[in-house]
């Protein structure tokens, strides 16, 4: 089970620059849908990647779904050579996204975030409007129910 509290604390305490996106961001906006992992968009500067790697190292991140024993070195070079990583950790599952379809990078998204305080820490959460726009742009059939709910939330909040 993913420990949202612990993962968010670890990231916030390390001053990693990240934006909460995906199901947990949707839940923060009022979604009632279950989600099993945390999705974050992280800033891809070397300094930030080093903070991210140091923060998660005690949780022993490993590629989710990869066969046991597959070589995987948890270091900043690995993250900088890749982009998006789906990981399992000692505190549950987390997706580290350098870029998201229809949304772009941390720098592209940060202007459309809100600061939320959850589990005693402050973090950036993608705004409801941008979350909807990103999911629409991604065009994945599996997101249709989620988009419908997010738009209903916007209507209930009188955003439209």
């Amino acid at each position, binding site marked *: 089970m993913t420990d949202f509290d612990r993962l968010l604390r670890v990231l916030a305490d390390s001053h990693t620059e990240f934006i909460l996106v995906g199901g947990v961001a949707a839940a*923060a906006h*009022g979604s009632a849908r279950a989600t099993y992992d945390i999705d974050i968009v992280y800033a891809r500067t070397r300094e930030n990647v080093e903070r991210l790697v140091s923060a998660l190292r005690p949780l022993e991140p490993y590629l989710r779904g990869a066969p046991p024993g597959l070589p995987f070195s948890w270091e900043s070079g690995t993250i900088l050579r890749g982009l998006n990583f789906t990981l399992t950790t000692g505190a549950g599952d987390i997706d580290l996204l350098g870029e998201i379809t229809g949304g772009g990078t941390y720098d592209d998204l940060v202007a459309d975030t809100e600061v939320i305080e959850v589990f005693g820490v402050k973090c950036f959460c993608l705004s409801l409007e941008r979350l909807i726009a990103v999911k629409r742009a991604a065009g994945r059939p599996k997101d249709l129910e989620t988009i419908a709910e997010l738009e209903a939330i916007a209507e209930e909040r009188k955003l439209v």
Partner: protein
Amino acid sequence: MSRIGREPLGFWLEPDPVIEAYKKDVDRTLIRENLKLTPDQRLRKLQSFMKFIHEIRGSARRRP
């Protein structure tokens, strides 16, 4: 929640007929209840629900 950066996007996407069809099945009573909560309370509720699901699944697996 406090917004940083620029003002709200200032536009809204055109209604999509497929999404509008899905919207009819959204349970707005759940949304209205969630909107009474703070983001912190919403995520604590989600965490609690996921813990419950985890326990139920574990219990089902342990059954002979």
